[in-house]
Every structure is written in structure tokens, then in C-alpha cells.
């Protein structure tokens, strides 16, 4: 049993992960009906559903800790209460932007989930193991696109590089600790995300270089998960509109 402070810290951490997944899933789902080819349309709908499934896993773990209702958290929290990283809320852009973001996020997930399978909190270790399997496949998909965009045509390369220039600084936010994370790291519940940044930059940097893309230097890195862009507002307004329109609806 976790002591109350650790419990609260874990609730915050699970919420941050879930919010990343929910917001990214919503961005991916915006491609449904608009992807460049039918097969990729189906694929991106699958990715969106998977990410949403992962959010559900994290929010159900949270529910075990504090009894909160996952649906209520997703549909009735205001943008300022969302704890997602800025990376996932940026508009979907073109196909290159979406695929480069997916690659950067998948690579991060593969790295930390692998570490989280060793968590001292067994429900987290078990969930991480389950999600990691699916994320490995996601990474195969986004890596394949990264390679084809980077080395395809002059235009695909230009678009992929532009996407990377915008996205890369935001990736670094993913490795920041929440104020309460330190305690979780100390007791082995949470992998130290800060320690994963260097291996991430090395691994991702090497792959980007192989496909002819160059990570930009510098750039603005958001300071906390309370920071959001204006884009989160419209995303949540759309995503939450049905639930908020009739909050008492109770049957499907």
C-alpha cells in the first residue's frame, strides 16, 4: 500500500501520461477520412484507438488509487486542468508533421515504458509491459514513415525537416519531472525520466541522421505541464462537446 503522499504523486503522474495519450489520440483521429490513402486512414484510426486505450489503462490505475471516474476526468476537466505536454496538442499539420511527431513520441514511450516495466508498483509495471508491446509496433510504423519522408522526395524531406524544426524542442518537455515525481523515483515506482533524455537524444539523433534529417539546436522548451498553447482549447471544446451538451446522458 502506498503512503498518502506517494499516492497523490502517482495520481498526478498517471494523469499526465493519460492526458498525453488522450490529446494525441484526438489529434490522430482528426485524420480519419482525410489520410492520404485509405490504408493509412485505417492505420491512423487504429493508432488513435490504441492511444486512447492506453489513456484508459492509466486512468483506471488512477481510479484504483483515488476512485476518480475516467470518463469524467476526460470530458469535464477544463484546459487549464489538463496535464498533457505541449508536443501532443499542436495542430495535426500535414502528414509529415503528424508522422514526425508520432515517431518522436513513440520513441519516447518505448524508452520509458521499458524502464517502467521494472517499477516497484506492480500494477504500473504490468500495464507498462502490456502497452509496450503495442508501442513497439507503433514505433515500427512511425519509423517507416520517418525514413520514407526523410529520404523520399525533395518535398517530403523539406516537410519532414520543417516538422522536426517545430517539434523537437517540445520533445524535451517529456523528460521533465513533475514537482511530486522525485518521491516516486526515490522509491522505484517511477523511472527517472531525466536520466532517459540523453539515451533518447542519442538514439533518435542517430536515426534522424540516417534518414537525412537534422534536429534543430535550442528552441523553447515549456517549463511545466500547466503550460498550454491556444490549440488545446479548441481541441478539448470539440472533444468534450457531446458529453458537456448532455452531462446526464447515461446510456448508449
Amino acid at each position, binding site marked *: 500500500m502506498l503512503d498518502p503522499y506517494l499516492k497523490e504523486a502517482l495520481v498526478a503522474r498517471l494523469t499526465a501520461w493519460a492526458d498525453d495519450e488522450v490529446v494525441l489520440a484526438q489529434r490522430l483521429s482528426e485524420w480519419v477520412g482525410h489520410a492520404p490513402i485509405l490504408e493509412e486512414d485505417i492505420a491512423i484510426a487504429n493508432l488513435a484507438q490504441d492511444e486512447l486505450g492506453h489513456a484508459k489503462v492509466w486512468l483506471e490505475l488512477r481510479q484504483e488509487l483515488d476512485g476518480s471516474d475516467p470518463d469524467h476526468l476526460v470530458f469535464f476537466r477544463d484546459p487549464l486542468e489538463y496535464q498533457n505536454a505541449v508536443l501532443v496538442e499542436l495542430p495535426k499539420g500535414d502528414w509529415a508533421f503528424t508522422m514526425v511527431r508520432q515517431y518522436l513520441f513513440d520513441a519516447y514511450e518505448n524508452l520509458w515504458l521499458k524502464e517502467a516495466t521494472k517499477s516497484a508498483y506492480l500494477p504500473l509495471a504490468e500495464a507498462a509491459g502490456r502497452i509496450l508491446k503495442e508501442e513497439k*509496433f507503433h514505433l*515500427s510504423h512511425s519509423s517507416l514513415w520517418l525514413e520514407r519522408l526523410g529520404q523520399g522526395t525533395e518535398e517530403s524531406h523539406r516537410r519532414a525537416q520543417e516538422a522536426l524544426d517545430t517539434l523537437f524542442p517540445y520533445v524535451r518537455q517529456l523528460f521533465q519531472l513533475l514537482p511530486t515525481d522525485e518521491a516516486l523515483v526515490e522509491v522505484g515506482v517511477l523511472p527517472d525520466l531525466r536520466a532517459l533524455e540523453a539515451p533518447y537524444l542519442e538514439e533518435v539523433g542517430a536515426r534522424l541522421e540516417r534518414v537525412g534529417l537534422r534536429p534543430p539546436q535550442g528552441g523553447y522548451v515549456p517549463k511545466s505541464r500547466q503550460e498550454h498553447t491556444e490549440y488545446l482549447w479548441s481541441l478539448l471544446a470539440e472533444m468534450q462537446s457531446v458529453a458537456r451538451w448532455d452531462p446526464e446522458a447515461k446510456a448508449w
Partner: protein
Amino acid sequence: MWGTEWPRFEVIKQDTQHSPPQMVGSVHAADPEHALLVARHVFVRRPAAYALFVAPAEAFFHVSQEGLKDLAPRREGGPEEAYWVFAKRSHRRSMVYGDLVGRFLAQGPEDAIAQALLQAQGVAFWAVPERLVVGTEPTEEVVESWFAPAKDKRYRLQSYYGLITAKGVEDA
């Protein structure tokens, strides 16, 4: 291939380690590796699978039962190569249209099908050179990440999900 359209690949799915690979449909993709990935998304999100294979659709030779009488296998002592031969067993409606009969060393697809006919009946046959078939690696890692997650996902018919209704639906 028309205009800028990507080529079409036939998708072959193997459900378990011991079941025969079956032709299940096709995908458009940029190259074989990409075809395998989208085939996983399109054909294997729910049902179980052990392996996937793809081959360019245009590389398939096909013949129906009616055409078999005109099949003229070349056997001139030329070089042989391996072909995969598939047979559609009946006209019964099915999600699958060709089962793998086997792998045959032949001088051409007609020859491969003629050999397969000694083993299997069918209403249509396909043959494709093995060198053009690309499959998923039969490693634990691939099976775990490509196919295992589907096992935990419940498949539900569309009709399972009703329409959202207003409050008080139980009393309606």
C-alpha cells in the same frame, strides 16, 4: 499502376504457427515493408495471427477451374524456381479466398499450378514466385508486438453499440 497510385500488394495471413497461409485481400502501399505494416492495420487488428506475407499483386498468375484445360505448363528444361500456389476451394462465401497448397519448384507459374493440381482441388488457383514474397519475421518480438495485442481486444459487431440517448432512457 495508374498515375501516382501506389502498387497493390496481395496480403497473405497465417493464423497460427501450424495453419496454412491464406490470401485475405490486398493493400496499396509504397513498398513491401510498408505493405506489411498497413496489412497489419487493415487485416489483423482483431483476429489472431501468427504471420503476414505480401507480394505484388501483378506478380500473381491466376487461373480459374474453367481455364485449367488451356493451362500449358512450360517444361523445357529451363531454370526452376520456387512458387507458392494457392487454391480457392469452393464458391462458398468466405473472408478468405486462397489457401496455400504448397511450395513447388517449377519452370513457370503454370507448371507450379499443374503440380499443385496433383494435391488439391479448387475452383481457382494462384501462383507467385517465392522470391517476391516478403513476410514478417517469425521472431517472438514481432509476434508479440504485431499480433499479440489483438488477442486482448474484444471484437464487437457494430450493432453492439447503440445510439446515445437522453437521460431517463430506462423509463422511456
